[in-house]
């Protein structure tokens, strides 16, 4: 743990920032415009901008310029899981992925269910300096699903928590879920639900269907997700609260959220990059790098979540970046940990699955990976459109290179990427956090 003194000396905000002129890129993939960043703010956007005295000029020709990405669903593992990831390593991974903010999930040891823990996580993020870290608070004490944690204390702490989740576990007690939804209204919070009926998924190992029948692995049925989402949208409507659905993965879930939105329920939903590409067919090799919760579904589900993301039923892409040490994955399938890393491949996956077939424009990508996640998380400093006066959180993305994914190159402390060996498009040319480069040409800028 860093001391306060070390934290302040490591804090990059202490030293002055030189102006940055991003020249010749295409904001939102549209017309070529220069973007000038001065003093942590977007100073100007326009054609052939003049470089001020001392400005660094970045050649962004051929690149897309986007607002810095915001991840609503990240497992940084600290405190307690430092073998898998730390705030330092996880936020470096985030910066490499083009993120300028992540929401750190609460299932740490100790659980982030008190003001003390969430403030510690936020402080660690500030001192690391690679991206903003917004802690997510647990809904229930110890994620045990029995009684509410002190949500108000976390909301009014210095971490200003607005997203609450027992992610990894479902708030399955309907009364407790109702109370949580009601309680967070007073500070404009949101409950982010991990939708999984625990009784329907006892011992579950993979999506229940044709492949699980053949492999003899216990099934995780789609209905275990859909029934909780259906209940929760009705509860949210009944009490007039905001609900966010984590890592929605089935065609039925898309239908339920679409129906709820038509009824005016204040529900938002996320899909992970891996659920946009991979299917239960990937389980056939029994390689636990493909073990994740919710499980990889069928090709029909993949098509439905892509369609839901394209038509706005699904609001955002969130990584569910879930690092694990190698020993947790080098095991028999039913004994291996669930989860995949995702921060450093997320935008490539979205480009591959959504942009390249024309279902999302780059402006849409900014909406689902920056603007909306910041709105849901009430991140006032993040997710702003690229316009003069906005905070200088910027990503310069070159969509042209095709590269074979090598988890060995990742900044994450863990290597459990299911995309290892897969050729994916795009590379991060530059991530800028509050005017200061955190990543250049894919490499973290040491400070």
């Amino acid at each position: 743990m860093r001391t306060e003194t070390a934290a302040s000396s490591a804090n990059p905000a202490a030293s002055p920032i030189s102006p940055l002129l991003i020249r010749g890129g295409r904001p939102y993939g549209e017309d070529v415009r220069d973007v000038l960043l001065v003093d942590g703010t977007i100073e100007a956007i326009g054609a052939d901008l003049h470089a001020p005295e001392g400005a660094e000029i970045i050649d962004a020709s051929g690149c897309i310029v986007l607002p810095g990405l915001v991840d609503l669903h990240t497992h940084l593992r600290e405190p307690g899981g430092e073998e898998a990831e730390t705030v330092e390593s996880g936020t470096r991974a985030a910066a490499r992925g083009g993120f300028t903010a992540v929401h750190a999930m609460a299932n740490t040891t100790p659980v982030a269910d008190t003001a003390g823990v969430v403030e510690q996580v936020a402080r660690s993020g500030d001192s690391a300096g690679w991206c903003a870290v917004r802690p997510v608070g647990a809904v229930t004490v110890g994620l045990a699903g029995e009684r509410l944690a002190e949500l108000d204390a976390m909301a009014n702490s210095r971490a200003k928590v607005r997203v609450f989740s027992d992610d990894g576990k479902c708030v399955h007690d309907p009364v407790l879920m109702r109370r949580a939804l009601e309680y967070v209204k007073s500070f404009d919070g949101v409950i982010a639900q991990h939708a999984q009926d625990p009784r329907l998924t006892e011992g579950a190992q993979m999506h229940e269907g044709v492949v699980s029948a053949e492999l003899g692995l216990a099934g995780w049925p789609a209905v275990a997700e859909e029934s909780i989402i259906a209940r929760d949208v009705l509860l949210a409507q009944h009490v007039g609260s905001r609900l966010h659905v984590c890592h929605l993965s089935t065609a039925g879930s898309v239908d339920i959220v679409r129906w709820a939105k038509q009824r005016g329920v204040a529900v938002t939903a996320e899909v992970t990059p891996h659920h946009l590409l991979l299917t239960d067919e990937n389980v056939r090799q029994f390689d636990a790098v493909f073990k994740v919760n919710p499980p990889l579904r069928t090709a029909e589900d993949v098509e439905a979540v892509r369609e839901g993301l394209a038509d706005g039923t699904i609001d955002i892409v969130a990584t569910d970046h879930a690092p694990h040490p190698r020993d947790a994955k080098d095991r028999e399938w039913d004994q291996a940990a669930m989860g995949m890393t995702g921060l450093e491949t997320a935008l490539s996956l979205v480009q591959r699955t959504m942009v390249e077939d024309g279902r999302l424009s780059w402006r849409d990508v900014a909406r689902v990976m920056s603007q909306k996640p910041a709105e849901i998380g009430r991140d006032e400093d993040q997710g702003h459109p690229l316009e003069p006066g906005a905070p200088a959180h910027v990503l310069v993305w070159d969509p042209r290179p095709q590269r074979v994914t090598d988890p060995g190159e990742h900044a994450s402390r863990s290597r459990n990427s299911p995309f290892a060996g897969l050729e994916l498009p795009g590379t991060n040319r530059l991530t800028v956090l509050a005017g200061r480069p955190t990543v250049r040409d894919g490499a973290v800028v040491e400070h």
Partner: protein
Amino acid sequence: MRHFISIADLDRAEAIAVLATAEHMAETQSRSIRKLPTLVGATVVNLFFEDSTRTRISFEAAAKRLSADVINFSAKGSSVSKGESLKDTALTLQAMGADAVVVRSGSSGAAHLLAHSGWIDQPIVNAGDGAHEHPTQAMLDAFTLRRHLRPGDRTGGLDGIHVVIVGDVLHSRVARSNVLLLTLLGARVTLVAPPALVPVGVSAWPCEILYDLDEALATGPDAVMMLRVQRERMVGGGFFPTEGEYSRRYGLTTVRAASLPAHSIVLHPGPMIRGFEIAGDVADSPRSVIVEQVASGVFVRMAVLYHLLATDAWEAPREN
């Protein structure tokens, strides 16, 4: 054939070749000296993470009759029960110089993982992995079926034969391997089970599903294979209301057995629960081949070890 993991890895010719070798092995076992020198100097490790006396003994007998040395490594009382991982166990066996590993595990995919993880280079034989597959059981069932229903045929399949498999299909690796192998060999397979013990997604299997045992038996099948009800794997409970109701609906009673055609045979992979899934009198009746299945198991496992370890594998076995 590098490993013996799944029936899905075999084509029909390979399956028939293993059966042919098993027939050769069976012949040698009627001689006064039953031990063959084929695998002298080879070490076969039986790596059993699940209790299974009968399968372990069968593999041990098969290896010993081929003159291999056998090391039994069972989870209980070993380093595995102290928390050692499959990976470390595999690395240990590799370092000790095992020539083949026969693995039984409660985890579906364990044999596949051993064969493809890079932890160990030697041939892997799947002696049952979770609810996935038990390929040597299916081979011994096919061997037994052919001997009874195609007597004298040592080169053919099971074309035209109708086999009814009854019971806890959901948790059964025996059922999965048999559906694949029997249909590969040309048989028609009907599964009979209460709906909760049929896996969701079964529609992709190359067989027919019925919920009514009497309806299935009325078609006059050539063989009925009863499965053990695996209560220890029934997570969540509620698969059927009571043993009595299960037994009435799905038990092979003497009355039901009497309705079968005269030539029909009855199989059970064991261990069987008499009076529950099968009546004791049926298990002991002339149409029961349950004890013979045990003998077939040794021949088939000799054949599998032969194909994996003998230097002239896939040639005709030597008559010495």
